[in-house]
């Protein structure tokens, strides 16, 4: 199983998580880590399993490094059925009305284009005193297990 961990961040928390997950994955799998600002929608492929880590800024919006990607992704048209991914969103319950919505924009578009989200939607709340990477590393094994149970590229579930 090949993993691509993508992150969108503004103050660095998502990047740290992405690096930690990447490192953990590399112990047993092939895994690369990339900033969403260096990733193009055309690159989505059924051969990779995507783990997307993304925070929330403004009022429920995407963080800076995800914005240029999302702008392209919004108008990107392709059939992404066959693409599987997992989502981990960062936010802060202090922002009651817009809590953790940043990553949901990407999630929504992926779903619209036919991609499939696997496993539990991960979340980290900055108002909790949990360390972001701890929460994500706890969340990861179930995702990896589900990802591994998928039949390879293009197959049916």
């Amino acid at each position, binding site marked *: 199983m090949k993993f691509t961990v993508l992150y969108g961040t*503004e*103050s*660095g*928390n998502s990047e*740290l998580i992405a690096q930690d997950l990447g490192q953990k994955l590399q112990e047993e799998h092939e895994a690369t880590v990339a900033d969403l600002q260096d990733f193009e929608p055309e690159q989505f492929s059924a051969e990779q399993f995507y783990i997307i880590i993304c925070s929330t*800024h403004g*009022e429920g919006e995407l*963080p*800076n490094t995800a914005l240029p990607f999302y702008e392209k992704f919004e108008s990107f048209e392709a059939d992404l059925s066959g693409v599987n991914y997992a989502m981990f969103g960062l936010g*802060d319950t*202090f*922002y009651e009305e817009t809590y953790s919505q940043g990553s949901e924009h990407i999630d929504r578009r992926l779903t619209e284009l036919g991609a499939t989200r696997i496993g539990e939607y991960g979340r980290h709340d*900055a*108002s909790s*005193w949990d*360390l*972001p990477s701890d929460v994500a590393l706890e969340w990861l094994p179930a995702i990896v297990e589900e990802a591994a149970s998928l039949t390879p590229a293009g197959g049916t579930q």
Partner: protein
Amino acid sequence: MSNTPPKHIAIIGSGPSGCFVAQSLQRAWKDSEITVFDRFAVPYGLIRYGVAADHQHTKAITRQFDRMFADGSVRFAGNVEIGTDISLAQLRERFDLVILASGRWRDRHLSVPGSSLKGVIPSGDIINALNAVPRPSIPLPEIGERVVVVGAGNVAIDMVRFLVKTAADYAGSDVAPGALEQYLAAPASAITVLSRSPIATAKADVAMVKELGKIAGVRYTFANSSPATEDNALGRKREDAFAALAEIEVDEPRAHVHFVFGAEPSKVTGAGKVEQVHLGAAPVGEASVIPADTVISAIGFDANAPGHLNYAEEFDFTPAEESGKVDEGLYRVGWLKRGPVGAIPANRADSNVVAKEILAAAESGELTASLDRGGFESLPESLRAQSVSFAAWQKIDAAETAAAETDRIRTKLLDHEAMLDIAHS
């Protein structure tokens, strides 16, 4: 061809920009030794000493940096003031690369007639007291019952929140107990906030405005000079937030906060102390003289304030967006580079850009490691001994956490020497 990257790196200032640039360089150069110096015994600059005590969630970002220091990949050396304990020139002789991240934060002072009257207070004095800034530790200024706040940016809103909150509203915070107690013994009941710009272009974040509405027992009203244009979505959101504040119904409010947008003080008058604030312009129907005993100015920061850049007077520190390079092997980041504007995440972006610039300079051979430069270990023994390591700061941290009152996360030490005693015990 690959050049040897700088081996010994010094960063001056452990605020967000210093920490972010340390993080970036550490990732790129695993074998370099990075030391982050700070004049305080404790790390994190304005995250600890500027961000409001009741906004602990904003301070959560320090957990990234805790990790960086705790796993030994970057060294913290607190209680070392560049320019006093060691000169910049001496530091540059011992480190291949020096990055200045010393920030700059001096309030811009109100400059209307009467602004030197007793009772006119820069917000910084209040912030320092509430955040327990230790070096020097300054008590909370006296604040009366009728207060005019000048400014409507996030710091002004921090001030308003402080003026109207009760003791119970500080649960989970680390506000300085003495300062809070002093203020709450006779809190303000009438607060007028003056904003030069209309709501549409005022600087406060919408979330900050909405947060005011969660404080019980406060009545809000506002007057606006001109409405946002149709296409100003953010301005309209901010207007909605103020409209929502004004709609909150309160029986017997403890305090009344009145925002006046499009108003500026023209002078402050009184016999020896503040008694009235006169407005130069104001929306129709607004009083032109406001009775007040206290004026708090929160009108931004002075990028050119003299004082703390004395360690490097030979260089030009005019704010700049472009290059972070100051001299060969000397760079600057964060508020010291861009001027005192922008929140914590903006410093990450800036630190990443400057880190790239530095990596490119190393790649081109402009920056290299030199055997003559021994880094931290080559500093005078006495300086190393006086410095506070990350482990020593953790002792201070533990002491502060242990001293926390009920419902508070810590009680900060108010005295620099007391911190050193614990650190070096």
